[in-house]
């Protein structure tokens, strides 16, 4: 079963689902496309928080996969350029602190129109420069806010042979835990 079908099976009856997606490095790229297809087909336009690949790279790969880029706005904290906003993207600067990220998400959701879901790609990237406890706390805060805003969303994690405790913690406050296999 592909990831899109797996998500569909687990959350189709939930109005604003919060999904934790954990995939192996081998299936990561395909999984990202699957989760994005599911959310954009069901909810329309959304916010893509990219900590892992520059938004320009993602836009190219989404377009190639037949996913309409115009349905997305990006919060980009991986492209190595100074903080600034464009029509489709808010560039925060590379690997910003968790407080800045939280406030960035809040600003995007409240100030931009048409955000009907939020995807965070990826939790694993945060573990490069943050401790697992802080990453879990950040995700919990974002999850709480999504509930308050009434928005569905997904946290994407890649299984790296470590950080499994974090994944277990995140699973507790999500509606579904989807484990993608290669």
């Amino acid at each position, binding site marked *: 079963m592909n990831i899109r079908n797996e998500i569909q099976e687990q959350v189709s009856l939930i109005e604003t689902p919060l999904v934790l997606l954990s995939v*192996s*490095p*081998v299936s*990561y*790229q395909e999984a990202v496309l699957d989760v994005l297809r599911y959310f954009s087909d069901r909810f329309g336009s959304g916010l893509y928080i990219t*900590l*892992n*690949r520059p938004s320009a*790279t993602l836009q190219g790969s989404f377009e190639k996969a037949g996913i309409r880029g115009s349905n997305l706005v990006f919060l980009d904290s*991986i492209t190595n350029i100074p903080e600034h906003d464009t029509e489709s993207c808010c560039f925060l600067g590379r*690997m910003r*602190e*968790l*407080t800045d990220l*939280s*406030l960035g*998400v*809040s*600003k995007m959701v*409240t100030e931009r129109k048409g955000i009907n879901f939020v995807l965070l790609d*990826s939790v*694993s*990237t945060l*573990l*490069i*420069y*943050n*401790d697992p*406890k*802080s*990453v879990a*706390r*950040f995700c*919990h*805060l974002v999850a*709480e*806010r999504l509930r308050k805003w009434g928005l569905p969303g997904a946290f994407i994690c*890649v299984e*790296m*042979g*470590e*950080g499994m405790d974090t994944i277990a913690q995140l699973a507790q406050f999500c509606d579904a835990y989807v484990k993608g296999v*290669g």
Partner: protein
Amino acid sequence: MPKRIVDTEHKSIDRVAVDALLVGIRNGLGYLGKEGEPILEKMGDRMLEYLTMVGEVKSHSKPEEIRQSLQELFTSNGYPKEIPLKFKGSPPTPSMPDFINYLGGTRKEDGDHKKDYLTQSKADGKAQVDWVIYEMVIYGMSRGLDSIGAQGQILTNRIAGGMLDYLVENGRIEPSDDPEVFLQRMGDFFLKAGFADKIVKEFEGSPPNALVLTYYHSRYHMNVLPRLRDAGNLLYSCPPCLAAGSILRRSRGTRIVYDVEIRVLPEGEVVLRHKIYPGGESFSEEQAQETSRLMK
């Protein structure tokens, strides 16, 4: 793209540096089991791509000519003659799906990796290989993780940990409980192995918030890193820098974001500033509450 630098004092590198990285790759990805094989295959293909890129193998050559030039390169560096070269498609494109095992001295037999000759180089440090082999392994390792983006740094760091362990276990780097001493010994190993003409280490801040490393005539920084960045690769894979990160992580619990600033100066000098994040919580309960209040 700058021409590959080949005319510095060190034309070869201690083969144990290459072997240690290969062991690190296999151990670092070991948790994936068979699922990790596509990544290893991709790394192998990117290694071959590097040899073509720097002109060791002519891309327009006929299959037999490619095989011959690879055999010449590898046998002259002490590797077996039977290279795992395959050709796919039309026109035939060369591929080395089992490259990592070939270089690491293991062959896949009935799904198992049989140990062959890996331990050959560990004892006396006399075995040397051409620098292009080391460049090729680092380039292929980094590009093989392209598809997972920046988070691939976690795997790269694991690989470096495995590499460091191998060098310690084989007596090439003497460990120390004092990270400063351990770092010095690790730097001395890479210097002696032929990684660079000179390596200077400096910490900024108290407690340290940045590690500044200056390399003189480091072929990784001159030949490999620019090619990785040109290809859009986001990872930082300089073995001594990663080993330094590993030592600091294990001894002080700190985390490093590599390559925050890079300055390439004349005379083959490269200065890198790596940002150090302290151990402990980066987002406390109090910070989370305060941030929650600020969020609309």
